């Protein structure tokens, strides 16, 4: 029997037996997308994300001033508690503690913030997915060796989960020193066990479905089923988690910045760093902290809304 007819056979079987998870992954997503389009949460989330991405791309060119220009240095007297943190004239968001234009820094900072979020999410996703897939495949293929591999991997993953995420990130950052790369790696590593567990769990759930047994009874090797069916069908929760992780990553990166581990380079402002710099002056110039903080909150909200809406749309139980 040729490979293609075999594959077609599995697909057909999956179609017939998977009662709730209608057919293959593709139509599951098409169905989910149809429902996402009518979901208010999803639309708001997607709109926020779109604005944020546009800002990250064109922000640095739109910024009226440079991120480092200490243009209004003389107007801010930190020692005397004199700040300009509210909008005025050409400075829509006021000035920061060094007399720089907060609005410009906010626009320019969007790119770094997005970069931190995306890169750390990708680190977590890629490494986590590889670990999870290995573990899930080992467990599904079974055998004493497979079970053993799965157990060992999961023990390590559980250990990583046992550590408070922030502390794990802090210790990584402490070893690697203070830089943007450090923050991204630290936040990314924290996400690894989450993705790994999720993908493994999802694969095990798929592996126990009837279509796997049916395909096996047709003489199709289990290894093949894992690659062509189980793995693709297990990816949807991972993709949902990736969306949610972007929110967590941006928030955690801000926390790391607050703990003094963020990017020290003043030329590449980032919202988390801006917020942590503003905290010292919070009593005198609260708005200086509010702008980057609101940026972080709204962006995180956008990713969370979209992620939650996706989760709902993909949940077979909620499908009407």
């Amino acid at each position, binding site marked *: 029997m040729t490979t293609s007819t075999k594959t077609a056979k599995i697909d057909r079987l999956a179609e017939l037996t998977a009662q709730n998870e209608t057919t293959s992954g593709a139509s599951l997503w098409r169905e989910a997308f149809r429902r996402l389009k009518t979901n208010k949460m999803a639309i708001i989330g997607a709109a926020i994300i779109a604005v944020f991405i546009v800002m990250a791309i064109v922000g640095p060119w739109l910024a009226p001033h440079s991120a480092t220009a200490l243009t209004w240095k003389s107007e801010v007297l930190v020692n005397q508690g004199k700040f300009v943190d509210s909008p005025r004239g050409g400075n829509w968001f006021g000035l920061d503690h060094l007399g720089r234009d907060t609005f410009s820094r906010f626009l320019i900072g969007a790119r770094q913030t997005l970069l931190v979020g995306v890169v750390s999410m990708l680190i977590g996703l890629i490494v986590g997915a590889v670990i999870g897939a290995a573990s899930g495949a080992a467990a599904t293929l079974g055998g004493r060796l497979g079970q053993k591999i799965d157990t060992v991997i999961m*023990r*390590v993953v*559980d*250990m990583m*989960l*046992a*550590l*408070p*995420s*922030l*502390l*794990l990130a*802090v*210790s990584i950052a*402490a*070893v690697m*020193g203070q830089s943007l790369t450090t923050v991204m790696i630290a936040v990314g590593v924290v996400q690894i066990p989450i993705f790994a567990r999720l993908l493994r769990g999802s694969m095990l759930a798929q592996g126990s479905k009837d279509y796997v047994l049916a395909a096996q009874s047709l003489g199709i090797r289990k290894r093949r089923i894992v690659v062509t069916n189980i793995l693709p069908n297990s990816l949807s929760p991972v993709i949902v988690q990736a969306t949610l992780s972007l*929110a967590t990553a941006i*928030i955690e990166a*801000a*926390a790391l910045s*607050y*703990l*003094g*581990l963020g990017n020290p380079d003043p030329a590449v402002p980032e919202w988390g760093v801006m*917020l942590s710099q503003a*905290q010292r002056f*919070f*009593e005198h110039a*609260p708005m200086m*902290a509010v702008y980057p*903080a609101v940026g*972080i*909150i709204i962006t*995180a*909200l956008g990713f*969370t*809304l979209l992620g*939650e809406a996706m989760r709902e749309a993909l949940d077979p139980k909620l499908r009407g």
Partner: protein
Amino acid sequence: MLRLVIRRLLQLIPTLLGLSVLLFLWLNRLPGGPASAILGERATEADVARINRALGLDQPVYVQYWRFLKRIAELDLGTSTQTGQPVWDEFTLRFPATVELSIAAMIIAVVVGVPLGYLAARKRGGWLDVASVSGSLVGICIPVFFLAMILRGIFSVELGIFPSYGRLSTGIDATSVTGLATLDGILTGEFDATWDAIMHLILPAITLASIPLAVIVRMTRASVLEVVGEDYIRTAVSKGLEQKVVRGRHILRNALLPVITAIGLLTGSLLSGAVLTESVFTFGGIGSFIRTAIDARDYPVLVGFIMFIAMIYVLINLLVDLAYSLIDPRVRVH
């Protein structure tokens, strides 16, 4: 029951052992090794060699690991480079404050979160539901330290309702018994101290509660919605039971099972949050101490803290498992 406890405790051993290996490797991977961490970056090679010998770092790795393990088993986590005191002593001194804060936060999260989630589910689509769902989404998205700054700025600095830092006001003479300031006041009859401690506790606890509260509201809501549709709820209604019996015995009892598990998982994020919260409110617990340790690159404290937290975390999860098995008879059997 006892067998379950013992089995679970035994299961912890490999986890903690593995963790210790990770930490040991991490310690050895420090830039320049512990010696330069202690001596700073400008240490001479002779100094480094001397320190390495003193710390036993010239010996084979497995010997070093064995000693590392033995020290942890003896609760010897080394000496803080900031204070020169044993790390373990520093922790035990500050731990009660963090425990008090965490318990207060968890109480707020559970006491507010469970009823709110339940009501939101019962009135699905109503204003309370919309408000609590959006509120919990925002709660998850606000950086903890920013929330702390805002609350402190408004309620302490501007309005002056709550004290803005510390655990007790200066001038309050409190006797320490348990280390939990609120409890000590009650035990010793110093009620003014208890009141003062509570006032100090409120804002940090609310801050720290924000994330667990948001998670518990959402979990309870989702869980109640699921349970309400179960067949056994229909059975209970078909028996003509009073609504309070249907709600309490049949809906809530089942709906709270996943919430209890979540509470265990939330402890980890609670301890992370404590580092941030305590540092904004200068609360004087382990969190504040870790914040300064991070600044000072105080590695023995950081390593000790991770080991310490990991132990607490697994212990709490053990307790949650046991609690779970008390409520859910299906777990008890196997």
